[in-house]
């Protein structure tokens, strides 16, 4: 044995130490799982802090600033407080499921991190179906909400869960359709492959419409404003997690924050080149830094958005999805697929690994295609807005007439001759 045992050759070390190869592999895998799952758990502490800080700045406040330097330890204090709170299980609740729901909530989010390519070399599992895996795990998330809402034995929780299910299932459609674009461009569903394919140009510039759709659908999937109907404090108190208290509630909250961050992370990977950046080929570990930086930009943008815009109504939410986002996503898929074939026929499609100059013609064509989609979408929106305005004006005029008529013929007076 000439090398020192480290995490890189752990499996070989264990085999040489007398373990069977299978067991050694299993132990190494378990170690990797613990490592990858710990990163999000630590991250969430800072996510809550930055969320409160950004919200405070938007509202012209300071935010947490007492516990630790610039309030960094505020979340730790809050978590400790949460642990000491009474853990209430409502009467008539389905105990086992009631306790299971927060666990599912957290597990589904952490599972997504398994396929995240942190650097060119470091990835939990480079499965060939990374994008689909992301969708599949996200779809389990709907189950947690239904289970939590139902098992609480509370009307508000159940109502909140119902409308949340409607929201999450609807927005899965544009989410999947927008993910088709990067998959078509990269020719693979592996997240590592999609990242590598963006060496010349980010997909954000090649397919801005898809990026927009992905971002909006993810806002709805993670329940962030303006789509935070999961937790509409002013309408149904708290929604599906109304009965939860103490640590279980904390798990729901933490999983929600983490889900939003994970969505930003996937946006950075799929549309902003993931770990790509200067010198990343020489020093692969730099990639993790770039990835975190890009994710932070996307995440903080979402925080500012959350602190700025009001919540939409459920019918507006549904109308936006089915009447605007889904048709837009379908049109986008058709146009991009057509453009890719045209580019291939013209020989303008850059070879894998080409630099930014080689990507320019393709990017320009794709951008033009996207601009056409945006222009058409805007025109449709404008026409819809005009029609709605005219309908409203007609309604107003009709009401005005009715009021005038009622004034002329007061109540009780015989109508007509």
């Amino acid at each position, binding site marked *: 044995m000439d090398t020192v045992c480290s995490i890189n050759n752990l499996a070989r070390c264990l085999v040489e130490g007398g373990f069977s190869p299978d067991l050694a592999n299993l132990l190494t895998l378990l170690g990797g799982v613990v490592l990858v799952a710990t990163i999000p758990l630590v991250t969430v502490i800072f996510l809550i802090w930055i969320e409160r800080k950004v919200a405070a700045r938007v509202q012209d406040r300071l935010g947490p600033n007492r516990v630790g330097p610039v309030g960094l330890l505020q979340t730790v204090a809050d978590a400790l407080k949460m642990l000491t709170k009474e853990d209430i299980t409502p009467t008539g609740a389905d105990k086992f499921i009631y306790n299971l729901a927060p666990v599912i909530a957290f597990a589904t989010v952490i599972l997504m991190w398994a396929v995240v390519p942190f650097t060119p070399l470091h990835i939990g599992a480079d499965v060939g179906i990374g994008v689909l895996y992301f969708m599949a795990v996200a779809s389990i998330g709907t189950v947690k909400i239904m289970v939590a809402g*139902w098992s609480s034995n509370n009307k508000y929780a159940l109502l909140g869960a119902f409308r949340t299910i409607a929201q999450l299932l609807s927005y*899965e459609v544009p989410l999947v359709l927008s993910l088709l674009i990067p998959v078509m461009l990269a020719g693979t569903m592996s997240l590592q492959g999609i990242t590598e394919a963006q060496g010349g140009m980010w997909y954000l510039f090649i397919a801005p419409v898809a990026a927009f759709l992905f971002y909006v659908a993810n806002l709805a999937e993670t329940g962030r404003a303006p789509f935070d109907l999961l937790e509409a404090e002013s309408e149904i108190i708290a929604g599906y997690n109304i009965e939860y208290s103490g640590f279980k509630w904390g798990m729901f909250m933490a999983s929600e924050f983490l889900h939003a961050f994970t969505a930003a992370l996937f946006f950075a990977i799929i549309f902003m080149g993931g770990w790509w950046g200067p010198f990343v080929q020489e020093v692969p570990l730099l990639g993790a830094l770039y990835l975190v930086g890009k994710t932070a930009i996307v995440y903080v943008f979402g925080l500012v958005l959350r602190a700025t815009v009001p919540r939409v109504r459920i019918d507006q939410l549904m109308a936006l999805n089915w009447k605007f986002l889904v048709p837009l996503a379908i049109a986008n898929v058709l146009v991009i697929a057509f453009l890719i074939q045209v580019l291939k026929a013209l020989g303008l499609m850059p070879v894998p690994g080409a630099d930014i100059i080689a990507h320019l013609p393709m990017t320009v064509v794709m951008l033009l295609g996207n601009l056409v989609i945006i222009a058409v979408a805007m025109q449709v929106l404008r026409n819809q807005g005009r029609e709605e305005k005219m309908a409203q004006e007609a309604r107003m005029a009709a009401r005005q007439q009715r009021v005038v008529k009622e004034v002329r013929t007061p109540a009780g007076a015989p109508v007509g001759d």
Partner: protein
Amino acid sequence: MLEFNASTVAFVVMTLFILGGALGVVTTRNLIHATLYLILSLFGVAGYFVLLSAPFLAAVQVLVYIGAIAILIVFAVMLTRSMTRMSEILNGQWLLSAIVGAGLFLLLVIGVILPTWGNGGLLDATVSAPSQVVIDTVDLGKALVDRNGFVLPFEVASLLLTAAMIGAIVIARDDTE
């Protein structure tokens, strides 16, 4: 015959998930519990796909089946009167269904065992090695749209689904408008 390694353990666990979950679905008196047992069972099937090196099918299994469980729960809540204490037996032909189910299972077992372990079966002649051909998602996609592949069944299936969707819209639509 069976080697003891990690995938054997996983196979046994997944089998327990599938069978246990399926048993739970049909025996529990609580509809919500039944749907959750169904998740367990379907998850086991997804695990089988992973063990068979078909991660695409595994992900689709989770996405399509487990993702739709929430809808199933919504239907259970909306369409039944008492979900938690089913006292009456709603299916009057449960004995017939049990017999048919058992018969089909027996047929399946025979169908699997005879060609493999029976006289002149696969294992009788030579110990067949696992197939070395790696089929990935690209192959699957090509097979679905290839002229010599499955393009006709694929298109027919999608047409059927579209028809079902249009039918559902027509039924659900308000006639008064």
